[in-house]
C-alpha cells in the first residue's frame, strides 16, 4: 500500500512536469509531422515515380507511402518520448532532486516502477496526439483500433522507458544524453522499418533489424493501422512483452544497486 502510494507520487510528478512543458509537447508533435508530411510526402512522390510499372512494387500495392510510415512515426514518437522521460533521471541527479527521492523511506523498486509508468504515460499521451493525424494521412480509425493501439503503444512506451532508466541509472552527467540519443535512439528508429519495408535487405542489416525491439513495436502498430505485417502479431507481442519485462527487472535492479 505504502509502495503503491510512492509509485503513484512519482508517476504524478512526471505527468505534471510533462503537462507543464508545452514546448516539449509541441516540439515532439512538430518533429513527427515533419517526418510524416514533409519527408513522407516528398519521398512518397519519388518512390511512386521510380517504381511506377515496376515488377516488384516498393510497397504493397495500393498503399500510400505516407500511410505506410504513419505507424512508424507513431513508434518513433513513443521511442523518443520514452527515452527522454527516462533520461530526466540524469537531470534529477544533477540538480539534486534525486537525493530527495533516494533518501525517502520507500523502496527503490517503487521509484523505478513509478518512473517507468510515468514515462510510459507521457509517451502514450504523445502517441495519442499522433492518432489525431489519422484523417490527414487518410487512415480511418475505428474505436476498436484505437483501443488496440493504446494497449500496444503503452506496452512499447513502458518497455522503452524502462530501457532508458537502465541507461540513466549508470549515467552521471548530461553529456552522455546526446550520445544516447544518437547512438541508441536513432539506430533503433532507422532499423525498425518505420520508414521502409523490411525486405530484400543485406544480411547484416536484416540481422540488426531483427535484434531491434522497436521493429516488433512498429510491426504491431502497422498491422493494426494498415493491416500489413512482417511477423505474426503473436511474435510481436511476445518479443515486446519479453523485452519490457527484462528491462523493468533490470531497471529495478539498477536502482537497488545504486550506492
Amino acid at each position: 500500500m505504502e509502495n503503491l502510494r510512492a509509485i503513484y507520487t512519482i508517476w504524478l510528478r512526471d505527468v505534471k512536469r510533462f503537462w507543464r512543458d508545452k514546448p516539449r509537447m509541441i516540439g515532439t508533435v512538430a518533429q513527427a509531422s515533419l517526418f510524416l508530411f514533409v519527408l513522407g510526402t516528398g519521398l512518397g512522390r519519388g518512390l511512386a515515380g521510380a517504381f511506377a510499372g515496376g515488377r516488384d512494387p516498393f510497397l504493397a500495392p495500393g498503399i500510400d507511402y505516407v500511410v505506410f510510415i504513419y505507424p512508424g512515426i507513431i513508434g518513433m514518437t513513443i521511442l523518443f518520448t520514452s527515452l527522454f522521460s527516462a533520461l530526466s533521471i540524469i537531470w534529477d541527479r544533477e540538480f539534486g532532486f534525486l537525493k530527495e527521492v533516494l533518501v525517502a523511506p520507500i523502496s527503490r523498486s517503487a521509484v523505478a516502477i513509478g518512473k517507468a509508468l510515468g514515462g510510459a504515460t507521457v509517451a502514450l499521451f504523445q502517441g495519442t496526439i499522433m492518432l489525431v493525424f489519422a484523417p490527414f494521412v487518410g487512415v480511418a480509425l475505428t474505436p476498436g483500433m484505437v483501443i488496440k493501439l493504446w494497449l500496444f503503444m503503452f506496452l512499447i512506451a513502458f518497455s522503452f522507458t524502462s530501457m532508458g532508466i537502465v541507461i540513466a541509472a549508470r549515467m552521471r552527467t548530461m553529456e552522455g544524453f546526446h550520445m544516447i540519443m544518437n547512438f541508441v535512439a536513432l539506430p533503433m528508429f532507422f532499423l525498425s522499418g518505420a520508414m521502409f519495408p523490411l525486405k530484400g535487405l543485406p544480411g547484416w542489416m536484416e540481422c540488426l533489424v531483427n535484434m531491434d525491439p522497436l521493429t516488433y513495436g512498429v510491426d504491431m502498430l502497422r498491422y493494426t493501422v494498415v493491416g500489413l505485417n512482417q511477423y505474426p502479431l503473436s511474435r510481436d507481442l511476445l518479443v515486446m512483452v519479453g523485452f519490457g519485462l527484462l528491462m523493468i527487472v533490470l531497471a529495478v535492479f539498477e536502482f537497488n544497486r545504486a550506492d
Partner: protein
Amino acid sequence: MDKIIEVESLTKKFGELVAVDCVSFDVEKGEIFGFLGPNGAGKSTTINMLCTLLKPTSGGAILNGFDVLKEPHAVRRSIGLVFQDPSLDDRLTARENLEFHAMVYNLAPKDMWDRIAEVLRLVDLEDRQNDLVRNFSGGMKRRLEIARGLIHYPKVLFLDEPTLGLDPQTRNHIWQYVHDLKEREEITIFLTTHYMDEAENCGRIAIIDYGRIIALDTPDGLKRQVGGDIITIKTVDNERAAREIKERYGLEVSRDDGSLKFEIVRGEEFIPDLISGLSIEITSINWRKPTLEDVFLKLTGRAIREEDAGPVDRMRMYARTKGRR
C-alpha cells in the same frame, strides 16, 4: 538527558583518503548540535552516513534508537534533511514539492493538508505556495527545503550548510526560523557550517578538522580554551613594548601586521593597568572577547576563512543564487 544520536568510531575511507577518522560523539535530545570545520573536513560525509546515504567503512551509529546500518528505513523516517545543494523540483510549485514529500513519507491523507499549511506558515511561504519554485530566490528555496524536511515530524533535522551562498540578511532570517522551530517543535537540530559566527547559534559544537573531532563543547566552553580576552595594541615602538609586556606581566605576545596581540583573563580590567604601566606610548588599543575563530586558530594553527571556498563551493553558491536552470 536522553541521547538521540550515538556515534561510535565512525570511519569513512574513499580509497586512500580517510574522510572521517574514527569519530565518536553523542547528540542530546532537543539540542542544536553543530559541526564546525573547513571545507573538506568530513562534515557532509558524516551527515551522509548518519542519514544512511553512505555506508561507513567501519563503526556505526544509533539514531532515535535505530541502527543506521541495520534499520535504514526507520532512520530515514526519523530524520528530516536539508542538503548542502538544492534538491527541490523547480518545475513544481512550492506546495507540490511539499505534497510530493508528504506522500512519499506516507503521511495520513487527512493530516497532510494541515501539516503542509503548518510548515508553510513556519517559514512564511504561505502566500507563495502556488508559485513555481524556479521563480524563488535562494533564501526562499532554503526556507522551503526546511519546511519540507519538517513535514513528516522528524525527530532530528539535519541542516548541511544551511546558509551557504545566502546574503547576510537572509542568513539571519534562516537562523530566526531555526530558532522558532526549536520553540515550536520537539526536535533536535544537527547542522554543519564553516561560518564561525553562525556556529554561535548552536548549543554545542564539535570542531572537526581532517576527519577528526578536535574539540566538543558549548561555544562558551570552547572560548574558555583560549586564554581569556584578546587585546591588540599598537605602539610607537612595538619591539620594546613586546619585551616590556613579556617581562612585566609574563604574557605571550604575538606580532602581526604592525600590532601586538596577547590573551588575558578579564582584559577590560587589565587595560588601565597596561596604559599606566607601559613606558612606551600606545597609539591604539583594541579589546575583544575571544571568538570561535580564535578557538579554531588556537587548536589547528590555521584560520578558517570564507575566501578558502573551493571551486565546488563557488559553483554551489552560484547555482543557488542564480537558480538552477
